[in-house]
C-alpha cells in the first residue's frame, strides 16, 4: 500500500524564483527504508518538510500537485493533525528541543495529541527505553552533548509512533559512535514496521540499511531504485559523497558494486588479486576528468620536516567546571607537518586546539607555540601566527561583504598582503562571491569564506576543527590539496576530526584522544592497528585500512609501505593504553 503519494509536486518558497521541488512524482510503500540523497540545495530538506505539512502550512510559498501521506491530503490538514502520522527529526539538535527536561520534551508531542495521562507516561518510558536515554530523563536538553540531544529528539518523535519517520540529515556533526547507535535504533523501528525516509548526503554511513535510494538534483528526482542498482550508474554529475568501496569498485571496473567494506573484501578475495593489481592503470582509464569516482588514496610520504617543533604541548591538563577536559597531553608538531587529532566528539580535540592561540590556558603543564609560552602571550598576538578555523562559520561572519570579511584579520593584525589575498580567493574560488553578503551564502560557501579568513593573516600554524563536516567530495579533495600546498610553504597543520577517511588523506601523524587523554600516537596504519586504542576512542578504521588488513590491500594500487623521501616518521610507534608522560 502506498503510504506516501506525491503527484507532479512543484514547490517554490515565498520570494524565490526557482523551484525547490520541481515536478516530483513518487510513491513510498509501507515498510520501505528510503535513503534520500543529493548535494546541498538539491531539495532534500524541502521534501522532508513537504511530508509533514510544514510545506506549505509553515513556510508558505506556492505548492502545486498532490501530496498524500497515510491517506491524508497534506494541503487539507494542518501540521498539528499530520505530525502524529509523519514524525520529523531535524538536523540541528540545538534548535529542536524546547522543554526543560528530557521527559517533558518527549511528553510535549504526546500532550499535543491529547493522549490520556497514563498513556503519556507509558510512552515516555517506552521512548526512553527504545533510545536507551533513560539516564537522561531529568536532564535539561541544552546541557546534553549534540549526540545525546539528537537521540532525545528522536525519542520525542518515536513516542508519537508515527507511521512514517522522516529525518533531515540527522547525522551532521555527530561522531561515528553516535551515528552507529542511531542507525541501530532506526533499524529496530524499521523492523517493527515503521516506514523511514532518511535524508543524508554521505551515503557510506547509511546505505546498507536502506531498501531504496532516491537521489535528488535541483529539486528533481535524478535516480530512484535499489541502492546497488543506483550506485552502479554514473552519478558523477550529482555531487554525492559516495562510499569509498563504491568509488574503488567503479575505478577498478568491477561488474558489481559492493555496499560495505566486508562485501568488498569478499568480492576481491573471490575474484583474486589480479583484478586489484590492474587498478592504477584501469582507474586512470576509467575516470574521466568529469568523474569524481577517483577514490582518494591515503598520502604515503612526508614532506621533509626540519627544525625544532613549532608546537610543543608538555604534560597539559585542562580543568573546566571541576571536570578534566584534557589530561597530561604532550605532543609536538614540526614545520611543514600535518598532525591529525582524532577522537569522538567530547574527547577534548577542540579544547586542545583552543590552547594553541591562548584562548584557553592550561591548568597544568605548558603550551609553547613558536618558542612563545602561551601563558605569557595574548590571543590577539598569537592570532598572527595561529589561524584557527572553527566548525561553525556563522560564529564569525559579520561584515557586509565577503571581501571585507576575509580582510578582517589581516587588517586587525596589520598584516595585509594583496598578493596573498588574491591567491586565497583563487584557492577557495571566492572571486564570484567577493561582493556578496556572507549571510546569503550557502553553508558550504560560508565554510570556504571562514577558511580564507583564517588564512588571511598568513599564519604559520593552521588549526582546523572538523573541516569536512557537511562538505561534499569535491570540497574534501580540494581541501586536501590545499593543505598539502600550505605545508610545502612551511605551514604546520593541526587538524581535529572524527573523519578518519579525510585524516588518512592528509596526515601521516595521528594522535588519538579519548576522554582528554592521548591513547595512541603514530602513523595512521599503526594507530588503526591498535585495537585497544581504537576501541577506547570509539573509532573505526577506514575502509582502506580494513581492506589492507584482509590482505587485499597489499597490492592495492602498488602502495609503498614506507615513506619514499624525507625523514622517517618521528613519532613513536603506537603504544596501547594510556601514554602518560
Amino acid at each position, binding site marked *: 500500500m502506498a503510504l506516501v503519494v506525491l503527484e507532479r509536486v512543484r514547490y517554490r518558497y515565498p520570494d524565490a524564483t526557482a523551484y525547490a521541488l520541481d515536478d516530483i512524482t513518487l510513491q513510498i510503500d509501507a515498510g520501505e527504508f528510503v535513503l534520500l540523497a543529493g548535494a546541498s540545495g538539491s531539495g532534500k530538506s524541502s521534501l522532508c518538510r513537504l511530508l*509533514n505539512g*510544514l510545506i506549505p502550512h*509553515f513556510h508558505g510559498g506556492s505548492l502545486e500537485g498532490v501530496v498524500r501521506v497515510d491517506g491524508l491530503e497534506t494541503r487539507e490538514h*494542518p*501540521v*498539528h*493533525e499530520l*505530525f*502524529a502520522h509523519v*514524525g*520529523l527529526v*531535524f538536523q540541528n539538535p*540545538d*534548535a*529542536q*528541543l*524546547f*522543554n*526543560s*527536561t528530557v521527559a*517533558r520534551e518527549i*511528553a*510535549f*508531542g*504526546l*500532550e*499535543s*495529541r*491529547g493522549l*490520556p*495521562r497514563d498513556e*503519556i*507516561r507509558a510512552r515516555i518510558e517506552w521512548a526512553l527505553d527504545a533510545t536507551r536515554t533513560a539516564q537522561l530523563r531529568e536532564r*535539561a*536538553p*541544552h*546541557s546534553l552533548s549534540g549526540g545525546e540531544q539528537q537521540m532525545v529528539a528522536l525519542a520525542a*518523535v518515536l513516542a508519537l509512533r508515527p507511521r512514517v519517520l522522516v529525518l533531515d540529515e540527522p547525522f551532521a556533526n555527530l561522531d561515528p559512535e553516535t551515528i552507529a547507535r542511531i542507525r541501530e535504533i532506526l533499524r529496530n523501528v524499521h523492523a517493527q514496521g515503521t516506514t523511514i525516509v532518511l535524508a543524508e548526503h554521505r551515503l557510506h554511513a547509511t546505505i546498507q540499511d536502506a531498501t531504496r535510494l532516491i537521489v535528488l538534483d535541483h529539486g528533481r528526482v535524478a535516480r530512484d531504485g535499489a541502492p546497488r542498482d543506483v550506485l552502479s550508474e554514473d552519478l558523477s554529475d550529482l555531487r554525492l559523497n559516495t562510499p569509498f568501496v563504491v568509488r574503488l569498485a567503479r575505478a577498478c571496473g568491477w561488474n558489481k558494486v559492493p555496499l560495505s567494506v566486508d562485501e568488498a573484501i569478499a568480492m576481491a578475495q573471490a575474484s583474486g588479486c589480479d583484478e586489484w593489481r590492474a587498478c592504477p592503470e584501469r582507474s586512470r582509464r576509467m575516470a574521466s576528468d568529469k568523474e569524481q569516482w577517483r577514490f582518494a588514496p591515503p598520502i604515503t610520504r612526508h614532506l621533509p620536516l626540519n627544525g625544532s617543533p613549532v608546537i610543543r604541548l608538555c604534560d597539559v591538563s585542562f580543568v573546566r567546571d571541576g571536570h578534566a577536559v584534557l589530561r597530561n597531553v604532550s605532543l609536538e608538531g614540526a614545520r611543514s607537518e600535518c598532525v591529525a587529532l582524532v577522537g569522538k566528539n567530547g574527547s577534548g580535540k577542540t579544547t586542545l586546539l*583552543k590552547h594553541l*592561540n591562548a*584562548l584557553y590556558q592550561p591548568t597544568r603543564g605548558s603550551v609553547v607555540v613558536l618558542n612563545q609560552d602561551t601563558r605569557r602571550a595574548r*590571543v*590577539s598576538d598569537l*592570532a598572527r601566527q595561529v589561524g*584557527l578555523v*572553527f566548525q*561553525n562559520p*556563522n*560564529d*564569525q*561572519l*559579520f561584515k557586509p561583504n565577503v571581501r571585507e570579511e576575509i580582510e*578582517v*584579520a589581516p587588517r*586587525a*593584525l596589520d598584516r595585509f598582503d594583496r598578493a596573498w589575498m588574491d591567491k586565497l580567493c583563487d584557492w577557495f574560488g571566492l572571486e564570484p562571491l567577493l561582493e556578496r553578503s556572507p*549571510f546569503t551564502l550557502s553553508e558550504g560557501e560560508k565554510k570556504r569564506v571562514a577558511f580564507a*579568513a*583564517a588564512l588571511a*593573516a598568513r599564519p604559520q600554524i593552521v588549526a582546523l576543527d572538523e573541516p569536512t563536516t557537511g562538505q561534499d567530495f569535491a570540497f574534501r579533495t580540494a581541501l586536501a590539496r590545499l593543505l598539502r600546498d600550505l605545508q610545502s610553504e612551511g605551514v604546520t597543520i593541526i587538524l581535529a576530526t572524527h573523519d578518519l577517511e579525510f585524516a588518512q588523506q592528509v596526515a601521516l601523524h595521528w594522535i588519538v584522544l579519548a576522554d582528554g587523554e592521548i591513547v595512541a600516537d603514530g602513523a595512521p596504519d599503526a594507530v588503526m592497528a591498535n585495537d585497544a586504542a581504537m576501541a577506547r576512542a570509539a573509532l573505526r578504521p577506514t575502509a582502506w585500512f580494513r581492506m589492507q588488513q584482509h590482505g587485499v590491500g597489499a597490492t592495492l594500487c602498488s602502495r609503498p609501505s614506507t615513506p619514499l623521501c624525507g625523514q622517517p616518521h618521528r613519532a613513536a610507534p603506537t603504544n596501547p593504553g594510556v601514554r602518560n608522560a
Partner: protein
Amino acid sequence: MLDPRTKLFLAFAYMVVLMFTTNIVALTVECALVAGMVFALRLTRAWLATLRVLLPMTAFLVVVMLFSFDVVAALAGALRLVAMTTAFFVFFQTTAPEDLANTLVKSGVPYAFAFILTASMQFIPVLSRKMQEVMEAQRARGIRLERDVASVRNYPALFAPLLIQAFTLADQLAEAMEARGFGAPQRTFARDYALRGGDYVAIALTLIFVMVAWQVR
C-alpha cells in the same frame, strides 16, 4: 510541592508587602524571611551567583538614593531590590517553566502566550553558549573582545553573528515546535495541576502575613 500559581501569588504578595513597608526594621525582618527560605531550600550557592550580578546594580541605586534622599531611604531601597529579586529567584528555581505555563493555560491564559515563556527560558542557555563561541571565534581572528572600553567598537563582531544566529535558531525552533503539534486544539497535560490543601494553607498564611505587615509598615 506547591502549585505554580500559589507560588506566583506568594511572590507577588511579597512584592506588594515590600512596596508598602517603609519601617526599616520591618523591612529587615521581611528580607530575613526570604533569605531563610533560600537557605532552607539549599539554593544558597545559586543565589550567591545571582547576587554577584545584582550587587553592582544595587550599589548604583544606593549611590543615586544617597544623593536624592537619605541613608535610611537608600538602605531601604537596596533591601527592597535584593529581596524582590530573591523572591522571584526562589520562584523560578523551584518552578519548571512548563508547569507555570501549563497552570496558566488551565487558568485561561492562551496556550501560545504561556508557551512563549517556557520556550524562551530554554533559549537563554543556548544563546549564552553561542555568545561564548562567537567571542572565541572572533578573538582567534585577532579581534579584541575583552571587558574594556577599547573593545566596545568591536562589538558588532560579537553581536552581528549572535543576532543572526538567534533569528535562525528561533525560526528553526518554531518549525520544530510545529512539527510536534504545537497549537493542537485538544491538548492534555502529562501532570495533573490542581490546588490542594497545602496551597490553600499557604495562601491563607500569606494573606495573614500581608495584613500583619500592613500593621507594622
